[in-house]
């Protein structure tokens, strides 16, 4: 069994440097790689391009990198629950590329799966399609989108084993599985890291072959962005 376990977040992020492109899992604040983000803040690497569905809030998630002006460009489908983001975007300090959410997911999956490009109907006829190749299939128009290229992928899973196998929980799964193996180096952080053989091979969401480094994080905050509850009647 090939071991992917590293001791801590410091070791997990070795090789990270300025001007790199990262993929980061998560939807809103759910399933984000909290520990990797905290370490990126500490390392204070600059000029980053971040591929992530959202950009966090002012004091959590990718918002922490924005506070330190570490991000040069965001590639996301939905942003802006975040004053600092808005300020940097409107002032032109921050470059923002907005792309459809399904296209974002599939550009990750294409990178993971060795597909260079794919045709999708999403965005046809809109400004998203500007400058892109258009093609008709079965009477419907599609645009050509390309696989992402990234240096590091930062993944948050629920459980993992030392072979790098991952299991996600609930909707904290989101983009995380699709980003595994899509960057040159995939770093997974998990709430519980068990020895290889402790996870059911049948129930693994992402096989360890897609993961280069794995570590266990402690004290996950897992902040809720929109707390909605009903009252007992």
């Amino acid at each position: 069994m090939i071991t992917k376990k590293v001791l801590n977040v410091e070791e997990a992020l070795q090789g990270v440097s300025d001007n790199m492109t990262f993929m980061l899992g998560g939807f809103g604040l759910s399933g984000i790689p909290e520990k990797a983000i905290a370490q990126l803040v500490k390392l204070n690497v600059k000029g980053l391009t971040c591929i992530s569905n959202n950009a966090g809030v002012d004091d959590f998630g990718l918002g922490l990198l924005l506070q330190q002006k570490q991000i040069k460009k965001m590639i996301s489908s939905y942003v802006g629950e975040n004053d600092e983001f808005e300020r940097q975007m409107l002032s032109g300090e921050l470059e923002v590329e907005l792309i459809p959410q399904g296209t974002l997911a599939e550009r990750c999956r294409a990178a993971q799966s060795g597909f260079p490009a794919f045709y999708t109907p999403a965005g046809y006829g809109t400004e998203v399609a500007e400058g892109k190749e258009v093609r008709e299939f079965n009477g419907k128009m599609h645009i050509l989108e390309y696989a992402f290229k990234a240096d590091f992928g930062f993944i948050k899973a629920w459980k993992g084993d030392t072979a790098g196998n991952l299991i996600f929980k609930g909707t904290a799964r989101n983009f995380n599985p699709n980003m595994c193996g899509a960057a040159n180096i995939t770093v997974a952080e998990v709430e519980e890291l068990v020895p290889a053989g402790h996870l059911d091979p049948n129930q693994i969401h992402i096989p360890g072959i897609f993961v280069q480094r794995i570590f266990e994080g402690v004290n996950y905050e897992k902040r809720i962005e929109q707390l909605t509850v009903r009252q007992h009647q």
Partner: protein
Amino acid sequence: MLDKNGIAKRIAKEVKDGYYVNLGIGIPTLVANFVREDIEVEFQSENGVLGMGPFPYEGEEDPDIINAGKQTITTLPGASFFDSAMSFSMIRGKHVDLTILGAMEVAENGDIANWKIPGKMVKGMGGAMDLVASAENIIVAMMHTNRAGASKLLKRCTLPLTGVNCVKKIVTNMAVLEVTKEGFKLLERAPGVSVEEIKDATEGHLIVEGEIPEMTI
């Protein structure tokens, strides 16, 4: 004239037994409250859940179980979780039967604009472009006019588009309309709203054939 709940109630009548439904934020979210209880419907949220239930009871919320509006939710028996790529496989592959979403503008050819106002902070399209490009059945929930009284049912959209030729039906505070090749076909009037008032509030080509019934909710 309907209020937001009225629009949601009317749209709920379009939800049929056995439908998988994706609800956008705003008025569409309210539709879930009015679906008939004697039919089976499952709600999909594009962040990766099928079989969404109501909000959790206080103290039972789980940060790992949210909807696309980032709200804490619960799941019903038969629910499943999946990754984003599979979620959009459901949408792009036309497995989701009905998409209900809001709009800033709809054009008489079915174009929709609902994600960007030039000059204002743009938050992004999220999953809306995938949804409108793929869904067989798209119903728009919106107010017929903007706050200044100008029509939102136009000959052509003036705002950047979310998708082209995709809207099938529109339910507003004033009317139910079908998007046809010839334009907006008026199907129903809201209680107390006249055909003349709807004509005045509709900039795009409005087709009125025969008697237009008042909607029942």
